[in-house]
Protein backbone atom coordinates (compact mmCIF):
# COMPACT_ATOMS: atom_id res chain seq x y z
CA UNK A 1 0.00 0.00 0.00
CA UNK A 2 2.88 2.34 0.82
CA UNK A 3 4.28 1.84 -2.68
CA UNK A 4 0.90 2.76 -4.12
CA UNK A 5 0.66 5.79 -1.87
CA UNK A 6 3.98 7.05 -3.20
CA UNK A 7 2.65 7.24 -6.77
CA UNK A 8 1.53 10.68 -7.85
CA UNK A 9 -2.25 11.02 -7.48
CA UNK A 10 -3.84 13.79 -9.50
CA UNK A 11 -7.41 13.64 -8.20
CA UNK A 12 -9.74 11.69 -5.99
CA UNK A 13 -13.14 11.55 -4.41
CA UNK A 14 -14.62 10.27 -1.17
CA UNK A 15 -17.90 8.43 -1.71
CA UNK A 16 -20.66 7.59 0.76
CA UNK A 17 -23.37 5.21 -0.37
CA UNK A 18 -25.79 3.16 1.79
CA UNK A 19 -23.68 3.89 4.88
CA UNK A 20 -20.42 2.70 3.30
CA UNK A 21 -17.44 5.03 2.89
CA UNK A 22 -15.11 4.40 -0.03
CA UNK A 23 -12.61 6.45 -1.97
CA UNK A 24 -11.33 6.53 -5.52
CA UNK A 25 -8.08 8.17 -6.58
CA UNK A 26 -6.67 8.48 -10.07
CA UNK A 27 -3.34 9.52 -11.52
CA UNK A 28 -5.03 11.37 -14.41
CA UNK A 29 -7.61 13.97 -13.37
CA UNK A 30 -9.39 13.76 -16.74
CA UNK A 31 -10.71 10.27 -15.92
CA UNK A 32 -12.58 11.33 -12.77
CA UNK A 33 -15.77 12.53 -14.54
CA UNK A 34 -16.09 9.09 -16.17
CA UNK A 35 -15.96 7.53 -12.71
CA UNK A 36 -18.91 9.57 -11.39
CA UNK A 37 -21.32 7.68 -13.63
CA UNK A 38 -20.08 4.34 -12.23
CA UNK A 39 -20.70 5.15 -8.58
CA UNK A 40 -23.61 3.49 -6.75
CA UNK A 41 -26.98 5.22 -7.25
CA UNK A 42 -27.68 7.84 -4.59
CA UNK A 43 -23.99 8.30 -3.71
CA UNK A 44 -22.87 11.42 -1.92
CA UNK A 45 -19.48 13.05 -1.73
CA UNK A 46 -17.74 12.40 1.59
CA UNK A 47 -15.02 14.37 3.31
CA UNK A 48 -14.01 11.63 5.73
CA UNK A 49 -10.28 11.21 6.13
CA UNK A 50 -10.47 7.43 6.37
CA UNK A 51 -12.45 5.14 4.12
CA UNK A 52 -13.36 1.46 4.34
CA UNK A 53 -12.00 0.68 0.89
CA UNK A 54 -9.74 2.76 -1.32
CA UNK A 55 -9.59 2.27 -5.07
CA UNK A 56 -6.48 3.42 -6.93
CA UNK A 57 -6.72 3.72 -10.69
CA UNK A 58 -3.45 3.94 -12.57
CA UNK A 59 -4.09 5.14 -16.10
CA UNK A 60 -1.32 4.17 -18.51
CA UNK A 61 0.55 6.98 -20.27
CA UNK A 62 0.71 7.54 -24.01
CA UNK A 63 4.05 5.95 -24.79
CA UNK A 64 4.63 5.30 -28.49
CA UNK A 65 7.51 2.85 -27.96
CA UNK A 66 7.05 -0.06 -30.38
CA UNK A 67 6.28 -3.43 -28.81
CA UNK A 68 5.29 -1.90 -25.50
CA UNK A 69 1.69 -2.49 -24.34
CA UNK A 70 0.53 0.09 -21.86
CA UNK A 71 -1.77 -1.37 -19.23
CA UNK A 72 -4.27 0.45 -17.04
CA UNK A 73 -4.41 -0.91 -13.52
CA UNK A 74 -6.92 -0.86 -10.70
CA UNK A 75 -6.22 -1.61 -7.06
CA UNK A 76 -8.70 -2.14 -4.24
CA UNK A 77 -6.66 -1.18 -1.18
CA UNK A 78 -3.38 -2.95 -1.97
CA UNK A 79 -4.81 -5.76 -4.10
CA UNK A 80 -4.70 -5.44 -7.88
CA UNK A 81 -8.17 -6.32 -9.19
CA UNK A 82 -7.88 -5.35 -12.86
CA UNK A 83 -5.16 -4.90 -15.48
CA UNK A 84 -6.16 -4.23 -19.05
CA UNK A 85 -5.09 -2.28 -22.13
CA UNK A 86 -8.70 -1.06 -22.46
CA UNK A 87 -9.60 1.63 -19.93
CA UNK A 88 -13.29 0.76 -20.33
CA UNK A 89 -12.65 -2.76 -19.02
CA UNK A 90 -10.85 -1.45 -15.97
CA UNK A 91 -13.62 1.05 -15.27
CA UNK A 92 -16.16 -1.77 -15.57
CA UNK A 93 -14.15 -3.69 -12.98
CA UNK A 94 -14.25 -0.65 -10.70
CA UNK A 95 -18.03 -0.41 -11.01
CA UNK A 96 -18.55 -4.14 -10.36
CA UNK A 97 -16.25 -4.28 -7.36
CA UNK A 98 -17.46 -1.03 -5.82
CA UNK A 99 -21.14 -1.99 -6.07
CA UNK A 100 -20.41 -5.45 -4.69
CA UNK A 101 -18.42 -4.00 -1.81
CA UNK A 102 -21.18 -1.53 -0.90
CA UNK A 103 -23.70 -4.40 -1.07
CA UNK A 104 -21.56 -6.49 1.24
CA UNK A 105 -20.54 -3.82 3.73
CA UNK A 106 -23.71 -1.74 4.08
CA UNK A 107 -24.67 -1.57 7.77
CA UNK A 108 -28.14 -0.13 7.11
CA UNK A 109 -29.44 -2.32 4.32
CA UNK A 110 -29.51 -5.90 3.14
CA UNK A 111 -28.73 -6.35 -0.53
CA UNK A 112 -30.40 -9.21 -2.36
CA UNK A 113 -29.31 -10.17 -5.85
CA UNK A 114 -32.59 -9.51 -7.63
CA UNK A 115 -34.32 -7.45 -10.26
CA UNK A 116 -36.97 -5.12 -8.81
CA UNK A 117 -39.89 -3.22 -10.31
CA UNK A 118 -42.64 -1.22 -8.68
CA UNK A 119 -46.27 -2.02 -9.53
CA UNK A 120 -49.37 -0.47 -7.97
CA UNK A 121 -47.47 0.70 -4.91
CA UNK A 122 -45.76 -2.64 -4.26
CA UNK A 123 -42.41 -4.06 -5.26
CA UNK A 124 -41.97 -7.23 -7.29
CA UNK A 125 -38.69 -8.99 -6.59
CA UNK A 126 -37.09 -11.25 -9.16
CA UNK A 127 -34.21 -12.96 -7.38
CA UNK A 128 -31.83 -14.98 -9.49
CA UNK A 129 -28.27 -15.72 -10.43
CA UNK A 130 -26.54 -14.27 -13.48
CA UNK A 131 -28.05 -15.31 -16.81
CA UNK A 132 -31.34 -16.34 -15.17
CA UNK A 133 -33.07 -13.65 -17.25
CA UNK A 134 -33.74 -11.04 -14.55
CA UNK A 135 -32.92 -8.07 -16.75
CA UNK A 136 -35.05 -9.27 -19.69
CA UNK A 137 -38.00 -9.70 -17.36
CA UNK A 138 -37.47 -6.30 -15.74
CA UNK A 139 -37.20 -4.69 -19.16
CA UNK A 140 -40.44 -6.32 -20.31
CA UNK A 141 -42.26 -5.23 -17.16
CA UNK A 142 -41.06 -1.66 -17.71
CA UNK A 143 -42.55 -1.85 -21.19
CA UNK A 144 -45.86 -2.82 -19.57
CA UNK A 145 -45.81 0.23 -17.30
CA UNK A 146 -43.91 -0.90 -14.19
CA UNK A 147 -41.53 1.48 -12.41
CA UNK A 148 -37.82 0.71 -12.48
CA UNK A 149 -36.08 -0.03 -9.16
CA UNK A 150 -33.11 -2.20 -10.12
CA UNK A 151 -31.89 -4.97 -12.37
CA UNK A 152 -29.21 -6.06 -9.91
CA UNK A 153 -29.98 -5.45 -6.23
CA UNK A 154 -33.07 -5.34 -4.04
CA UNK A 155 -32.01 -3.03 -1.23
CA UNK A 156 -34.00 -3.95 1.87
CA UNK A 157 -34.26 -1.75 4.97
CA UNK A 158 -35.09 -2.73 8.56
CA UNK A 159 -38.82 -2.52 7.97
CA UNK A 160 -38.57 -4.87 4.99
CA UNK A 161 -39.22 -2.15 2.39
CA UNK A 162 -37.25 -2.12 -0.85
CA UNK A 163 -35.28 0.97 -1.88
CA UNK A 164 -34.38 1.87 -5.45
CA UNK A 165 -30.95 1.00 -6.85
CA UNK A 166 -31.60 2.36 -10.32
CA UNK A 167 -28.29 1.77 -12.05
CA UNK A 168 -28.63 1.56 -15.85
CA UNK A 169 -29.93 -1.82 -17.01
CA UNK A 170 -27.12 -4.09 -18.21
CA UNK A 171 -28.59 -5.82 -21.24
CA UNK A 172 -26.62 -8.71 -22.78
CA UNK A 173 -27.10 -8.55 -26.52
CA UNK A 174 -24.53 -10.87 -28.06
CA UNK A 175 -22.74 -14.17 -27.58
CA UNK A 176 -19.87 -12.64 -25.59
CA UNK A 177 -22.30 -11.79 -22.76
CA UNK A 178 -20.96 -8.23 -22.80
CA UNK A 179 -23.53 -5.83 -21.36
CA UNK A 180 -24.83 -2.68 -22.98
CA UNK A 181 -26.13 -0.09 -20.51
CA UNK A 182 -29.55 1.50 -20.92
CA UNK A 183 -31.07 3.94 -18.49
CA UNK A 184 -34.73 3.39 -17.58
CA UNK A 185 -35.39 6.78 -19.17
CA UNK A 186 -34.01 5.60 -22.47
CA UNK A 187 -36.36 2.62 -22.33
CA UNK A 188 -39.29 4.95 -21.74
CA UNK A 189 -39.80 3.97 -18.09
CA UNK A 190 -39.86 5.88 -14.83
CA UNK A 191 -37.45 5.15 -12.01
CA UNK A 192 -38.81 4.64 -8.51
CA UNK A 193 -37.91 7.03 -5.72
CA UNK A 194 -39.84 5.87 -2.64
CA UNK A 195 -39.16 2.64 -0.76
CA UNK A 196 -41.93 0.11 -1.36
CA UNK A 197 -43.31 -2.83 0.61
CA UNK A 198 -42.83 -6.12 -1.22
CA UNK A 199 -45.94 -7.51 -2.89
CA UNK A 200 -44.52 -10.52 -4.69
CA UNK A 201 -41.31 -12.49 -4.92
CA UNK A 202 -41.04 -14.41 -8.18
CA UNK A 203 -38.30 -17.01 -8.44
CA UNK A 204 -37.97 -18.12 -12.01
CA UNK A 205 -35.57 -19.65 -14.45
CA UNK A 206 -35.66 -19.18 -18.21
CA UNK A 207 -36.13 -22.17 -20.52
CA UNK A 208 -36.91 -21.63 -24.18
CA UNK A 209 -40.48 -22.62 -24.98
CA UNK A 210 -41.52 -23.18 -21.36
CA UNK A 211 -45.00 -22.25 -20.14
CA UNK A 212 -45.23 -20.00 -17.11
CA UNK A 213 -47.06 -22.12 -14.53
CA UNK A 214 -45.65 -21.06 -11.17
CA UNK A 215 -46.28 -22.93 -7.95
CA UNK A 216 -46.79 -21.05 -4.69
CA UNK A 217 -44.06 -21.23 -2.08
CA UNK A 218 -44.65 -21.02 1.65
CA UNK A 219 -43.20 -17.91 3.34
CA UNK A 220 -40.47 -20.03 4.95
CA UNK A 221 -39.45 -21.60 1.64
CA UNK A 222 -39.57 -18.18 -0.01
CA UNK A 223 -37.43 -16.67 2.72
CA UNK A 224 -34.89 -19.47 2.26
CA UNK A 225 -34.71 -18.64 -1.46
CA UNK A 226 -34.15 -14.97 -0.61
CA UNK A 227 -31.42 -15.92 1.83
CA UNK A 228 -29.71 -17.68 -1.10
CA UNK A 229 -29.69 -14.37 -2.98
CA UNK A 230 -28.35 -12.30 -0.12
CA UNK A 231 -24.94 -10.76 -0.65
CA UNK A 232 -23.92 -10.49 2.99
CA UNK A 233 -25.74 -13.34 4.74
CA UNK A 234 -22.41 -14.92 5.74
CA UNK A 235 -21.17 -11.64 7.18
CA UNK A 236 -24.39 -10.36 8.77
CA UNK A 237 -26.74 -13.33 9.15
CA UNK A 238 -28.73 -11.80 12.00
CA UNK A 239 -29.60 -8.54 10.19
CA UNK A 240 -30.22 -10.42 6.97
CA UNK A 241 -32.68 -12.83 8.57
CA UNK A 242 -34.50 -10.03 10.39
CA UNK A 243 -34.92 -7.94 7.23
CA UNK A 244 -36.00 -10.92 5.13
CA UNK A 245 -38.51 -11.77 7.85
CA UNK A 246 -39.98 -8.28 7.74
CA UNK A 247 -40.00 -8.30 3.96
CA UNK A 248 -41.82 -11.63 3.77
CA UNK A 249 -44.69 -10.47 5.97
CA UNK A 250 -47.04 -9.42 3.20
CA UNK A 251 -45.41 -10.94 0.15
CA UNK A 252 -46.65 -13.70 -2.13
CA UNK A 253 -43.94 -16.17 -3.16
CA UNK A 254 -44.07 -18.14 -6.40
CA UNK A 255 -41.51 -20.27 -8.24
CA UNK A 256 -41.43 -21.70 -11.74
CA UNK A 257 -39.81 -21.96 -15.14
CA UNK A 258 -40.69 -19.31 -17.65
CA UNK A 259 -40.47 -19.01 -21.42
CA UNK A 260 -40.19 -15.70 -23.21
CA UNK A 261 -40.20 -12.60 -21.03
CA UNK A 262 -43.05 -10.99 -22.97
CA UNK A 263 -45.41 -13.84 -21.99
CA UNK A 264 -44.45 -14.19 -18.35
CA UNK A 265 -44.06 -10.47 -17.51
CA UNK A 266 -47.77 -9.74 -17.95
CA UNK A 267 -48.72 -12.84 -15.94
CA UNK A 268 -46.48 -11.77 -13.05
CA UNK A 269 -47.93 -8.25 -13.00
CA UNK A 270 -51.44 -9.75 -13.03
CA UNK A 271 -50.53 -12.00 -10.12
CA UNK A 272 -49.73 -8.99 -7.97
CA UNK A 273 -52.73 -7.01 -9.22
CA UNK A 274 -55.14 -9.80 -8.28
CA UNK A 275 -53.46 -10.22 -4.89
CA UNK A 276 -53.90 -6.50 -4.19
CA UNK A 277 -57.56 -6.69 -5.33
CA UNK A 278 -58.17 -9.66 -2.98
CA UNK A 279 -56.54 -7.79 -0.11
CA UNK A 280 -58.73 -4.73 -0.68
CA UNK A 281 -61.87 -6.86 -0.93
Amino acid at each position, binding site marked *: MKKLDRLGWAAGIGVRAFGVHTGVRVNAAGVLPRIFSLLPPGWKSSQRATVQRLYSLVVAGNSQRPGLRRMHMLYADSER*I*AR*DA*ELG*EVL*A*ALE*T*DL*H*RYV*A*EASPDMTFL*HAGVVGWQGRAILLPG*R*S*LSGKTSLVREMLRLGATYYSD*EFAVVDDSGKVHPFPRPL*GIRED*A*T*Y*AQTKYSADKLGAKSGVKPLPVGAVVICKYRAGAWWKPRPL*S*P*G*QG*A*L*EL*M*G*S*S*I*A*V*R*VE*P*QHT*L*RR*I*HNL*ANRAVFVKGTRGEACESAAAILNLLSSDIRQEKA
Partner: protein
Amino acid sequence: MKVREYPRARMDCLTREFGDELLVYDQQRNVGHCLNPTAAATWKLCDGKNGPPDLAKILTRQFSEPIDEPVVLLALEELSKARLLVGVEKPVRRTSRREAIRAIGIAGAIALPLVTSLVAPTPARAASCLANGKPCGSNVQCCSGKCGNGGHCGA
Protein backbone atom coordinates in the same frame (compact mmCIF):
# COMPACT_ATOMS: atom_id res chain seq x y z
CA MET B 1 -28.64 -42.81 10.98
CA LYS B 2 -27.66 -42.08 14.55
CA VAL B 3 -29.15 -39.59 16.94
CA ARG B 4 -29.14 -39.24 20.70
CA GLU B 5 -31.68 -41.32 22.57
CA TYR B 6 -32.86 -38.01 23.99
CA PRO B 7 -32.22 -35.66 21.06
CA ARG B 8 -31.12 -32.11 21.75
CA ALA B 9 -31.46 -29.21 19.31
CA ARG B 10 -28.41 -27.08 18.60
CA MET B 11 -28.65 -23.77 20.40
CA ASP B 12 -26.01 -21.88 18.38
CA CYS B 13 -28.19 -21.31 15.30
CA LEU B 14 -30.12 -18.19 14.38
CA THR B 15 -33.85 -18.70 13.95
CA ARG B 16 -36.85 -16.82 12.59
CA GLU B 17 -40.45 -17.98 12.58
CA PHE B 18 -42.56 -17.68 9.46
CA GLY B 19 -45.98 -18.73 10.69
CA ASP B 20 -45.52 -22.34 11.79
CA GLU B 21 -42.37 -22.74 9.71
CA LEU B 22 -38.93 -22.02 11.04
CA LEU B 23 -35.94 -20.61 9.18
CA VAL B 24 -32.70 -21.73 10.83
CA TYR B 25 -29.28 -20.37 9.94
CA ASP B 26 -26.27 -22.45 10.90
CA GLN B 27 -23.45 -19.92 11.31
CA GLN B 28 -20.78 -22.59 11.63
CA ARG B 29 -21.50 -24.18 8.28
CA ASN B 30 -23.15 -21.20 6.58
CA VAL B 31 -26.22 -23.20 5.70
CA GLY B 32 -29.84 -22.09 5.93
CA HIS B 33 -32.67 -24.54 6.62
CA CYS B 34 -36.42 -24.20 6.30
CA LEU B 35 -38.23 -26.51 8.71
CA ASN B 36 -41.85 -27.20 7.85
CA PRO B 37 -44.35 -27.04 10.76
CA THR B 38 -43.90 -30.70 11.76
CA ALA B 39 -40.11 -30.57 11.66
CA ALA B 40 -40.10 -27.18 13.41
CA ALA B 41 -42.33 -28.36 16.24
CA THR B 42 -40.19 -31.48 16.70
CA TRP B 43 -36.94 -29.49 16.72
CA LYS B 44 -38.26 -27.05 19.31
CA LEU B 45 -39.09 -29.97 21.61
CA CYS B 46 -35.62 -31.52 21.36
CA ASP B 47 -34.35 -30.42 24.77
CA GLY B 48 -32.35 -33.55 25.63
CA LYS B 49 -35.02 -34.72 28.06
CA ASN B 50 -37.64 -36.13 25.68
CA GLY B 51 -37.19 -39.40 23.80
CA PRO B 52 -39.09 -40.17 20.55
CA PRO B 53 -42.12 -41.70 22.37
CA ASP B 54 -42.44 -38.57 24.57
CA LEU B 55 -42.05 -36.32 21.55
CA ALA B 56 -44.83 -38.22 19.78
CA LYS B 57 -47.15 -37.68 22.76
CA ILE B 58 -46.39 -33.95 23.05
CA LEU B 59 -46.74 -33.39 19.31
CA THR B 60 -50.07 -35.24 19.32
CA ARG B 61 -51.29 -32.79 21.95
CA GLN B 62 -49.89 -29.76 20.09
CA PHE B 63 -51.36 -30.64 16.69
CA SER B 64 -54.55 -32.24 18.11
CA GLU B 65 -53.83 -35.06 15.66
CA PRO B 66 -52.39 -38.49 16.40
CA ILE B 67 -48.66 -38.43 15.65
CA ASP B 68 -46.94 -41.78 15.91
CA GLU B 69 -43.33 -42.56 16.58
CA PRO B 70 -42.38 -43.24 12.93
CA VAL B 71 -43.24 -39.62 12.11
CA VAL B 72 -41.07 -38.39 14.97
CA LEU B 73 -38.24 -40.67 13.88
CA LEU B 74 -38.48 -39.34 10.35
CA ALA B 75 -38.37 -35.77 11.69
CA LEU B 76 -35.32 -36.62 13.80
CA GLU B 77 -33.66 -38.19 10.79
CA GLU B 78 -34.28 -35.06 8.70
CA LEU B 79 -32.99 -32.82 11.50
CA SER B 80 -29.96 -35.03 12.03
CA LYS B 81 -29.13 -35.00 8.31
CA ALA B 82 -29.29 -31.21 8.43
CA ARG B 83 -26.95 -31.34 11.46
CA LEU B 84 -29.40 -29.47 13.64
CA LEU B 85 -29.13 -31.91 16.54
CA VAL B 86 -26.32 -32.08 19.06
CA GLY B 87 -24.11 -35.15 19.28
CA VAL B 88 -24.39 -38.51 17.60
CA GLU B 89 -24.80 -41.34 20.05
CA LYS B 90 -27.43 -43.95 19.54
CA PRO B 91 -28.31 -45.62 16.23
CA VAL B 92 -31.96 -45.18 15.39
CA ARG B 93 -33.93 -47.52 13.19
CA ARG B 94 -34.36 -45.89 9.76
CA THR B 95 -37.89 -44.84 9.04
CA SER B 96 -39.05 -44.67 5.47
CA ARG B 97 -41.34 -41.90 4.33
CA ARG B 98 -43.79 -44.62 3.33
CA GLU B 99 -43.83 -45.90 6.89
CA ALA B 100 -44.40 -42.39 8.17
CA ILE B 101 -47.24 -41.77 5.72
CA ARG B 102 -48.83 -45.00 6.90
CA ALA B 103 -48.51 -43.78 10.47
CA ILE B 104 -50.11 -40.44 9.67
CA GLY B 105 -52.81 -41.98 7.52
CA ILE B 106 -53.94 -40.79 4.13
CA ALA B 107 -56.32 -38.24 5.57
CA GLY B 108 -53.76 -36.97 8.10
CA ALA B 109 -53.91 -33.24 8.60
CA ILE B 110 -50.23 -32.78 9.38
CA ALA B 111 -47.48 -32.70 6.77
CA LEU B 112 -44.56 -35.10 6.76
CA PRO B 113 -41.57 -33.50 8.44
CA LEU B 114 -39.36 -31.81 5.92
CA VAL B 115 -36.13 -29.83 6.16
CA THR B 116 -35.02 -27.91 3.07
CA SER B 117 -31.42 -26.71 3.13
CA LEU B 118 -29.46 -24.18 1.14
CA VAL B 119 -25.79 -23.20 1.36
CA ALA B 120 -25.42 -19.45 1.89
CA PRO B 121 -23.58 -17.88 -1.02
CA THR B 122 -20.34 -15.94 -0.75
CA PRO B 123 -20.72 -12.28 -1.78
CA ALA B 124 -19.11 -12.95 -5.16
CA ARG B 125 -21.37 -15.93 -5.88
CA ALA B 126 -24.46 -14.01 -4.84
CA ALA B 127 -23.74 -11.06 -7.11
CA SER B 128 -23.79 -11.05 -10.90
CA CYS B 129 -20.89 -12.92 -12.42
CA LEU B 130 -20.42 -15.71 -14.91
CA ALA B 131 -19.55 -19.26 -13.86
CA ASN B 132 -16.54 -21.14 -15.20
CA GLY B 133 -16.93 -22.24 -18.81
CA LYS B 134 -19.34 -19.45 -19.75
CA PRO B 135 -18.39 -17.23 -22.70
CA CYS B 136 -16.96 -13.88 -21.56
CA GLY B 137 -15.57 -10.63 -22.87
CA SER B 138 -13.45 -9.51 -19.93
CA ASN B 139 -12.11 -10.63 -16.56
CA VAL B 140 -14.64 -8.67 -14.54
CA GLN B 141 -17.53 -10.67 -15.97
CA CYS B 142 -16.26 -13.92 -14.44
CA CYS B 143 -16.81 -15.08 -10.85
CA SER B 144 -13.26 -16.40 -10.98
CA GLY B 145 -11.99 -13.05 -12.28
CA LYS B 146 -10.31 -14.80 -15.22
CA CYS B 147 -11.61 -14.64 -18.75
CA GLY B 148 -9.25 -16.81 -20.76
CA ASN B 149 -9.42 -20.11 -22.63
CA GLY B 150 -10.62 -18.56 -25.89
CA GLY B 151 -13.13 -16.22 -24.32
CA HIS B 152 -14.48 -18.49 -21.57
CA CYS B 153 -14.38 -17.98 -17.82
CA GLY B 154 -11.79 -20.20 -16.19
CA ALA B 155 -10.45 -21.10 -12.77
